[in-house]
Each structure stands twice: as structure tokens, then as C-alpha cells.
């Protein structure tokens, strides 16, 4: 038992209370979720090897066709194979969704912790965040594309930057309550440094709301990417992403809903899985929900 703490020590420092408790049993839900997510990620990564058609090859004569043997999910308005596009679409979408979520959550977390804990910093940081919140991501996207050239990074930036203030606010609000807890006083009395208190005592409190916010950002980034594409400030609409497949299918919603259905299904499955995993992580983080081992 003693030894078990040794290798975990550095990890513990980094992740606060996240150490996986022993005796925790995963239910079927998270396992299925992990498998679904893994399959979708695999499909996306391996897309170039497995798709039946070139996802960008257009064929005007095959526009908006229903499912057939050559096109199992039919074709879109450019006569492109929907199946290939949906599979390939995961590449950009998952990348943007997950990285936007991670980046904005990480940056927001750091800023929010500091801002929530130090009153002096709070006044300044939050005013900057207020300002940042007011910049529309479309404008940011167009400007970033202009500065940086059209690239996935510009899109990432344009999606992530406006999310940061919202994450900061969330983290800060949790810290504001938590910093009044006596155990924080106790940590001060024990001579813990501020970074340590922030990261080890306060940060774990923010995780549950952050998991929620993070999955939301992930989903909304994937959808926002499409909006930006269509305003000419995103990834070229030629490159399939779940977002822009759906956005392109928008016009055909009443005539050919399957154009939206498939990418929508993939996205929903993904987000559902991430949510289930997030919930599981949350439960694991809460010792009060853990069972004591015998």
C-alpha cells in the first residue's frame, strides 16, 4: 500500500485528486462509449485508406443521388460520395473540436484559477476577458485568415479565443466559492505555495463543470467551424468536415435529410461518448461516490 504512492507522486502533483481510485468498477456505459469513440477516431485517422471514393471528387451527373451500391449513403450536391465525406470529415472536425476544447479549457483554467484566487489580478484579468468576449468569432476568423492565410490554425484560433473568457468565468466562479473553504486555510497554514493550492486544492473543484463546458465547446467548435467555412473564413468547403457537410446539406434539409443525418449522427455519437466518459471521470474524481475497498 505504501509503495503505491511512490510512483504516483508526480502524477498526483500534476493532476491533483485525479488519481484513479482502486476498487472502482467501470459500468458498461463508459466502455461502450470508449469503444465508439475509438472507432470513430480510427475511422477518421485511417480515412484515406478506407474510403471507397475520393471524398473531394465531384461528379455533376451524380448529384443528390440516393443510396446505391457505389454510393452507400448517396451523393451530395456536387455528386461527391457522402460516405467517404462523412468518414473523412471526422479528421478536421475531431481535430478542431477536441483541440479547441482542450486549448480553451486549459488556458481558461489557468487564467480562471489565478483570477478567482487573487483579488488584485481579478480586476484586471476579468476586464480583459470582458473585452475579449465582445469580439465576434467571425471577425476574428476573417482577420486571422488574412494574417495567417487560410489554415486550420486560423479557424482554431477564431473558435478558441472567444471561448476562453467563458471558461475563465466558469473556473473563476468555482474558485471564488472554494477559496473560502477551511481546507484552503489549512493548506495555507501548512505553508503550501500558491500554485500548489491553486492546482491541487482548487483545480479539482473546477473539473466537473469544466468537463461539461469542454464537451460543449467540442461540439460547438465543430459546428462553428462550418459557419466560418461558409462565411469564407474557415477551412475550404471542399475539404469535408462534419460541420460543413451538414451546412452544405442545409438547403436540402427538406428534400434530402440524409445529408445532414449521417454527419449529425457521427457528431452526436462522438459527443455522447465524450460526455459519458466525462461523467465517468467526474464520478471517479468524487471520493464521496467511491466505494471503499475491503
Amino acid at each position, binding site marked *: 500500500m505504501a509503495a503505491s*504512492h511512490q510512483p504516483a507522486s508526480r502524477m498526483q502533483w500534476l493532476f491533483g485528486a485525479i488519481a484513479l481510485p482502486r476498487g472502482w468498477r467501470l459500468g458498461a456505459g463508459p466502455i461502450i462509449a470508449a469503444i465508439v469513440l475509438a472507432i470513430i477516431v480510427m475511422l477518421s485517422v485511417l480515412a484515406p485508406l478506407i474510403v471507397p471514393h475520393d471524398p473531394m471528387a465531384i461528379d455533376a451527373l451524380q448529384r443528390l443521388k440516393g443510396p446505391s451500391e457505389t454510393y452507400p449513403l448517396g451523393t451530395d450536391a456536387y455528386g461527391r460520395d457522402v460516405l467517404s465525406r462523412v468518414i473523412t470529415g471526422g479528421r478536421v472536425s475531431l481535430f478542431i473540436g477536441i483541440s479547441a476544447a482542450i486549448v480553451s479549457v486549459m488556458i481558461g483554467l489557468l487564467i480562471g484559477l489565478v483570477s478567482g484566487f487573487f483579488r488584485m489580478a481579478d480586476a484586471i484579468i476579468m476586464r480583459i476577458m470582458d473585452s475579449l468576449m465582445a469580439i465576434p468569432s467571425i471577425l476574428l476568423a476573417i482577420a486571422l485568415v488574412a494574417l495567417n492565410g487560410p489554415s486550420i490554425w486560423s479557424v482554431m484560433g477564431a473558435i478558441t479565443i472567444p471561448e476562453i473568457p467563458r471558461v475563465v468565468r466558469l473556473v473563476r466562479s468555482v474558485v471564488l466559492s472554494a477559496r473560502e473553504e477551511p*481546507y484552503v486555510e489549512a*493548506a495555507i497554514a501548512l*505553508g503550501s*505555495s500558491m500554485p500548489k493550492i491553486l492546482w491541487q486544492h482548487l483545480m479539482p473543484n473546477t473539473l466537473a463543470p469544466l468537463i461539461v463546458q469542454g464537451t460543449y465547446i467540442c461540439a460547438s467548435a465543430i459546428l462553428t467551424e462550418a459557419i466560418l467555412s461558409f462565411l469564407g473564413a474557415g477551412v475550404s468547403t471542399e475539404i469535408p468536415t462534419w460541420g460543413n457537410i451538414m451546412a452544405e446539406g442545409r438547403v436540402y434539409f427538406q428534400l434530402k435529410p440524409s445529408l445532414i443525418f449521417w454527419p449529425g449522427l457521427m457528431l452526436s455519437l462522438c459527443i455522447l461518448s465524450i460526455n459519458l466518459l466525462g461523467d465517468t471521470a467526474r464520478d471517479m474524481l468524487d*471520493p464521496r461516490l467511491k466505494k*471503499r*475497498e*475491503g
Partner: protein
Amino acid sequence: MKFKTRTFDDVPSVLEIENLTVRLSGNEKAAPVLDRVSLTIRQGETVCLVGESGSGKSVTSLSVMGLLPRGALEATGGRIGLEGKNLLELGPQAMRDMRAQKISMIFQEPMTALNPVIRVGEQIEEVLNTHTKLSTKEKKARVLDIMNQVHLPDVERIYRSYPHQLSGGQRQRIMIAMALILEPQLLIADEPTTALDVTTQQQILSLIAELQEKHGTAVLFITHDMGVVAEIADTVHVMKLGRIVEQAPVEELLRRPREEYTRELLQAVPSLTPRAARDTPEGEPVLSVNSLQKVYGAHGVFKRTEPTKAATDVNFTIPRGRTLGIVGESGSGKSTVARCIMRLIDPTEGEIRVADQEIATLSRRALRPLRRHIQIVFQDPFRSLNPRWTIGRSLVEGPLNMGTDRRAALSRARELLKLVGLPDDAVDRYPHQFSGGQRQRVAIARAIAMEPDVLVADEAVSALDVSVQAQVLDLLDELQQKLGIAILFITHDLRVAAQICDEVVVMQHGRVVEHDSAANVLSAPRHAYTRALIEAAPGRQWDFANFRELDSV
């Protein structure tokens, strides 16, 4: 000494617990937390439950309330009979009706048991909202009335306060008020007076006695204070390791304990006679406090409320290796002084010197290296432990900050846990999985793991049964001998103060009213308040250790 001697042979019983067994959920192999506990309380009877800390007293009471933590503990056998119904089989709605109407409970740890974001007045009032149909005005009047009855000062202010703005004892009295307001048939009080000074305690006890008189309330009283037991109990049950080991009318038990454990317990009760004086060591005092003052600012969105003067002109010094006790009225500013000394709050005025360093005005950053010199055991141990951290992790936090190697810190932590009488697996458990007294011991272990020069102990042993208490006090004494720790010991328990303090400070209304050697304060008190305090010490005519009356009072 006059014991209660009423017989309850033909009085109907209110609560009948038969063979109650409680186990850790999903763990059949582990030893049960409660092992076939049986207990009967009759109308108007006061049953005291005493015993080792962690023996299952709180779990017993929670089982009666149907409030065992879901997913952690569950009742696997036996019966809890109330009015002919088995509470273990009641549905949630029926159980809800039972609570407060028929049974009320005073929880052990008042800080965590009060909702931090609702004004305490409203929290009391809520009981009335749920179970009566009074007008708003009547309700408020009832609440203020009960608050007065539990001797809360300044009830209008406290009515509007949030729990964190109250002292430990004040919170506890809120809990009591909440439980008493509806005059229940069965009152379960889980260490209701640990944070109360003896005069207030006396008031509360007589309040409960009055209730019993008027309504025939049956009381299950859990306590560590044998003095209280002697004063109020009709019947006493002694618990150890989840089992009731002995059960007898109070006088019988105190005079002729049958079980070995009971005898040990009684023998461990400290006497009220102060310890032999030790001479003051040479050299500068380790801690000196000079005209310390603390005023809690008031705040509200638009209206200003009166600020609270919690401490005024407090002066004292503690030399190396000596112990200074602070006793006094609940809410008199003891914890405030302690927190100022720790610089957890900023004193409004005054000087604090620790190891020759003026710290009252140092910045947080500059304070950090000094932290190892001065440590505190919080009055409220549960909240002072991070609920997400294992005990082991909490224990090594301080030493790691001071540069101790983790392995060494951890083995020292285990050692300390053993010294304070906690089981071996404690390091890997979380705070909520312990009993109140166990958590308090964790807090003590955490503070002494730092080997400080000054230890501030705020009600550090109040939740411990006397045998464990003795063990802990011995430990402190030993450390003091070895390392020369100076201890600031805040307590309500005059017996404890008598045992370990060299000097005693008596506080009332934020001021020091008396300050002298322990012997002088306890045997020849000068201030009226001090005299009242000593008068009120429960069981002072009884010599517990020798199972007889004290001859010399």
C-alpha cells in the same frame, strides 16, 4: 453527587433498536460497523451512549434517522422500532414525516451540518415551515425565542448571519435550536455540547431536561464527557468496536462498572485538580501576543450592518515548552485569536511575535517560510481536510512543503496515525469515511507532523473519548518534553485544561478577564465569570477514576 434514579420499568418505550447490524455497502467480508446493537429508550428517559471514538455511536444515530450515507453504509439486519413501525422498512415519504415531527437529531459537526449559503435563522425557521402552519411573524418569534433559550447572544444579528460568521459553539447552538424547536418525542443528540463552555452547556442541558419534563421526550445523548453523563443520564450504554459492551443505570455504571473497557474509560477521565506547576523556562517567549484586536467587518449589498468586535486588547506570551490554555464563553473570540495568530485572518490591530518575528503585518509570501514554526488544529476538522484527498495525502502536504522526502513523510504519517490511535488503512481513506473523533485525530496528526515550535490547538480533543483523549494528551506532553513545543490550548473542558495547562487565560466578550497560573485560575478564581465557569463544571463532585464521590468538595 446526586444521580438520576427514576425507574422506567412500566414506561412505554419510544425507540427499540434490536440487533441492528450495519455494514459497508458491497463489502460483506469487512467487519461490520455496527454489530447487533440493541438499545431501548423509554418516554422521558435519557440514554447516554458513550464509548470509544469510532465505535459506531454516530452510525447508530444515523441509522435511526434513516440517513446513512447512501452507497457507503447500509443496515443489513435488525430492526429499529418506533411507534410499532420498523423504521428500516419505511418508505422515504413516511420516513420524512417521522423526522422532525417525532425524532430530531443534533448532528455532531455543526459546521458541515449547516447549509453555508442560507442564513441560520432561516434554517431554523424551515423546520417550522415544514411542520407547522404559523404566520411569518409567529415563526420568527418562535425562532428568536428558541435562539434565546439556547443562550445565543445578540439573536437578531445571529438570526441574519451565515454559518461561517459564527463561532463553533454558536453554530452548535443553532443545530440544537433546530432540533428542539418542534419539541420532538425522541431527541438524538450527537455530542451536542462539545463546542460549548460549561456554563452554556449547563443551560442547554437544563433546557433539554425541561423538555423531557414537559413532553416526556426521550433522549439519546452521545457524549464523551463523563461529567455530563453523570449529570443527565438515566441509563448508560457503552460502545466499543460496533458493539454495546455494557449497559446499566448511571449510578450503577459509575460505581460498579463491570466491563474492563468501561473501567478503563472511567479511569481515563482527567481530574479537575490542576497539574503540578512547572517552572518557567529561561529565554524569550516563543509566542507573544500584544494588544491584539479583531473586528469583523460587516457587509451587505446596500446596507451596512454593525461590525462585530470579536477580540479586544488580548495580551499573553507562551514560553518554550509550556502550555497556555484559553477557556471562556462560547463566542468570546478564542478561535478568532487563534486564527489571527496563524495569520489566516488579518488582525485589526496589535502585534504577534513568533520566534522573534513580528508577523502581524507580514505579507502572505513572507509568511510562508515561517509557517513551519506555528501550526494549528482547527476547531472544525472535517472542513479543514480536503474532501478529495486521502488522509495520507493531507498528512504529508506540510512536510513536503518543508522539503521532506515523500517516503519519509509518509512513513512518519503512518507512525503518527498509529500514535493517535487510528487504524492502519487510514492513510488511504477519505475524510468522510471517518468518525468525528477520528477526523479530529487526523487533524492533530497533521499539525504535529510539522514539528512546529508553536502549536495552536482549537478544541483539539473535544470529540475524543476520554481514553483516546488521554492518549493524545500524553502524546502532546511527550512532544513538548522532547521538542519544547509551546502550546496554545483552547478548550471548554476544564478537566483537560487542568491536566495540561501551565497558565490559563479566561475570555469573555472578546476580552481577557483573567490570566494566571492554572492552579490559581482553577482553584482560586477571582473573576466572577471564572467562578461561574468552575461552578458549572459537570460531575465535579465525582471521582470517576475511583468510582466514588470526591471527598474534598
